[in-house]
């Protein structure tokens, strides 16, 4: 292996390897969102509709955090994964609405 090549490889390595900070931040964020959701339910005496809104909000934020950081969706070149997941979520929304609508309205 030529030394020239290994130097440029080393440079690229130093350039692009990301530290663990972002992932620890994502972890702490997920932790906080989880604790808020559980605390809202454990507190008990809050208005039911309000609790539902808190729960749904916390879940959606946490899923975005985890998709973006841990599944690398914020990185470049991830258009295709985003299309896949969005298409899946689209079908899921239709199914949930359909199932609830058919049975209860």
């Amino acid at each position: 292996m030529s030394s020239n090549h290994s130097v440029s490889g080393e440079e690229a390595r130093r350039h692009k390897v990301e530290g663990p900070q972002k992932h620890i931040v994502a972890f702490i964020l997920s932790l906080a969102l989880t604790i808020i959701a559980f605390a809202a339910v454990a507190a008990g005496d809050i208005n039911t509709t309000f609790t539902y809104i808190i729960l749904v909000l916390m879940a959606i934020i946490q899923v975005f955090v985890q998709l973006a950081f841990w599944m690398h969706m914020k990185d470049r070149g991830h258009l295709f994964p985003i299309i896949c997941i969005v298409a899946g979520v689209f079908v899921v929304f239709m199914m949930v609405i359909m199932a609830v609508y058919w049975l209860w309205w």
Partner: protein
Amino acid sequence: MSAHGHVEGQLPHEPEKATLEGRNKILGFWIFLGAEVVLFGTLFSAFIALRHQVLDGPHASELFELPTVFAATMILLTSSLMSVFAVQAMHKNQVKSMIWWLVLTVLLGLSFLVLEIVEFNTYVSEGHRMNTSAFSSSFYTLVGFHGGHVLFGVLWISLLIAQIFKKGLTVVTAPKIYLSAIYWHFIDVVWVFIFTVVYLMGKVG
């Protein structure tokens, strides 16, 4: 690895994307995950539509115990972080620490499974069986299916650790490690919806 001429002592940066095969695997895996979203969505829609049909069995708010669910959530969240660290160790070509992070991931996944089995056992002893009501059937199908995914992930990552011992970290094995981490995060994402929709909303009523 004679088939990959440039791998001689040193891996390329981001070895999981270094070959066309690796990139294709990642692409295909995302199609699979899109299908998994739909699959879990069908189970969720059945559960959401049927969750109040308890017949003679216990209602969700009497059944679920939040401390157990909270512990399971913490375990799965931490194991997700461990697999992030495994991929980061892989990018730095530190095979030993990568293996340790993977072992931690597997151990946490196993303890999640143990907790879930104990939990289901308690529910069955309280008269909440698979055939008790529409609620219990859809509950066990949804949560059990997620547990099945965790079991598969544990087996898969264990086999990958064995393969790393045998073949080392190469451009062939690196995409597998990367994808197993993506899969593990996906399981964690599904669990976010399970603890929100099934357990917390069940507890609220």
